[in-house]
C-alpha cells in the first residue's frame, strides 16, 4: 500500500512538472515561428520593392527567373521534413557557369537541329516520358500548384533526338540545349473505385472509395537549339572529353 501511494505521489509530481516544461518551451517555439514569418515578410517586401513592375498584383506563384530573391535560394538549411532545397523544387534554375559544349557536339548538332520533328525523353520525378510536339500526356499524379492553362518547362531530359539522330545524356542533357514547353490542359479523374473491406466474423462490410485525379497536358513544342543560338546565349566551346555527350546516328 505504501509503495502504491509513493508511486501515486511521484506520478502526480511528474504530471505537475510536465505542463510547466511545455509552457516554458511553447513561447520559444512561437517566437521562432514569428521570426521566420517576419523574415519571410521582409524578403517579400524586398522583392516587391526591387521588382521591375510593382503595379502588377502580387501572385502566389513564382514569377519569372529574375524576380526570385537571391538571398532565399542559398540560405535554406534543411531542418524539418518540409524543408526541401530549391534544386529539388519545381523552380526555374539560375545558372552560375556558362554552358560548356564540346567541339564534336558543336559540329554534329546542325544535323540534329535540321531534322524535325524532335522527340525528348523528359524525366518527371525520375520517370521517363517520351514526348514530341502535339502529344497529350496524362501524368500518373495530380501536379500541385498548377492551374489549367499554365505553361511548364520540362528541364530534365535523358535523350533528345530526331528520326535518325539521338543525343544521349549521361545521365541527363544540359537543359540549356533544348526547350520543351507543355501546357496544362486540365485535370482528369478515374472512375470511382469501391473496394469492399471485410473482416472475419462480422456481417458489416466497409467500403473504401478512391477516385484519383490526374493532370493532363499537351506538349507545345520540342525544340533543339542551334549552335548559333547557343553561342549567342554565351555557351563556351571546349575540347572533347571521354564522357562528353555525343550525337549517335541510327544504324
Amino acid at each position, binding site marked *: 500500500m505504501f509503495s502504491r501511494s509513493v508511486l501515486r505521489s511521484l506520478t502526480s509530481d511528474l504530471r505537475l512538472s510536465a505542463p510547466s516544461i511545455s509552457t516554458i518551451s511553447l513561447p520559444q517555439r512561437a517566437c521562432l515561428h514569428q521570426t521566420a514569418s517576419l523574415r519571410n515578410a521582409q524578403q517579400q517586401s524586398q522583392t516587391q520593392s526591387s521588382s521591375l513592375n510593382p503595379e502588377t498584383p502580387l501572385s502566389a506563384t513564382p*514569377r519569372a527567373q529574375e524576380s526570385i530573391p537571391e538571398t532565399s535560394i542559398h540560405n535554406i538549411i534543411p531542418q524539418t521534413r518540409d524543408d526541401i532545397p530549391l534544386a529539388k523544387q519545381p523552380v*526555374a534554375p539560375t545558372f552560375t557557369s556558362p554552358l560548356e559544349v564540346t567541339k564534336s557536339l558543336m559540329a554534329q548538332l546542325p544535323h540534329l537541329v535540321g531534322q524535325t520533328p524532335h522527340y525528348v525523353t523528359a524525366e518527371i520525378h525520375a520517370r521517363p516520358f517520351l514526348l514530341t510536339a502535339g502529344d497529350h500526356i496524362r501524368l500518373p499524379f495530380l501536379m500541385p500548384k498548377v492551374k*489549367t*492553362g499554365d*505553361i511548364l518547362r520540362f528541364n530534365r531530359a535523358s535523350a533528345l533526338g530526331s528520326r535518325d539522330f539521338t543525343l544521349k545524356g549521361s545521365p541527363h542533357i544540359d537543359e540549356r540545349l533544348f526547350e520543351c514547353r507543355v501546357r496544362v490542359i486540365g485535370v482528369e479523374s478515374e472512375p470511382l473505385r469501391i473496394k469492399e473491406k471485410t473482416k472475419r466474423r462480422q456481417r458489416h462490410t466497409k467500403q473504401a472509395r478512391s477516385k484519383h485525379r490526374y493532370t493532363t497536358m499537351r506538349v507545345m513544342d520540342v525544340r533543339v537549339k542551334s549552335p548559333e543560338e547557343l553561342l549567342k546565349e554565351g555557351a563556351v566551346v571546349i575540347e572533347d572529353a571521354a564522357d562528353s555527350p555525343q550525337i549517335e546516328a541510327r544504324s
Partner: protein
Amino acid sequence: MSYFRITLLRSAIGLPRRTTDVLKALGLKKRMATVFHPVSSSAAGQIMKVKELVEVKEVENYMSQHEVWLERKPDPGYYVEKTVAQERGESLQQ
C-alpha cells in the same frame, strides 16, 4: 571528425540472435536504413560482426535522416514558366 556511413543491405532474418542484437545496437532496424557513427574501435568491431550484411563508407560529415532522404529524392524535372494570370496580363498590355 569522420564517420562511418553504414547501410543495411541484407536482413538478419534466420541468423543468430547475436547478429540481430548487433544490428539493433548500431541502430539498423530495416533494410536500406542508413546510420552514421563516429569512427571508433567499438563501432569498427560492431561493423566487423555484421560485415556480410552492411555496406560501410567513411565520410567526413554526419547527415541527418532528412538529408539522406533528400539525396535519393529525384529532381522534379519541370517548372512553371508562365501562369495563366501572367499570360493574360501580357495580352492585356498589348
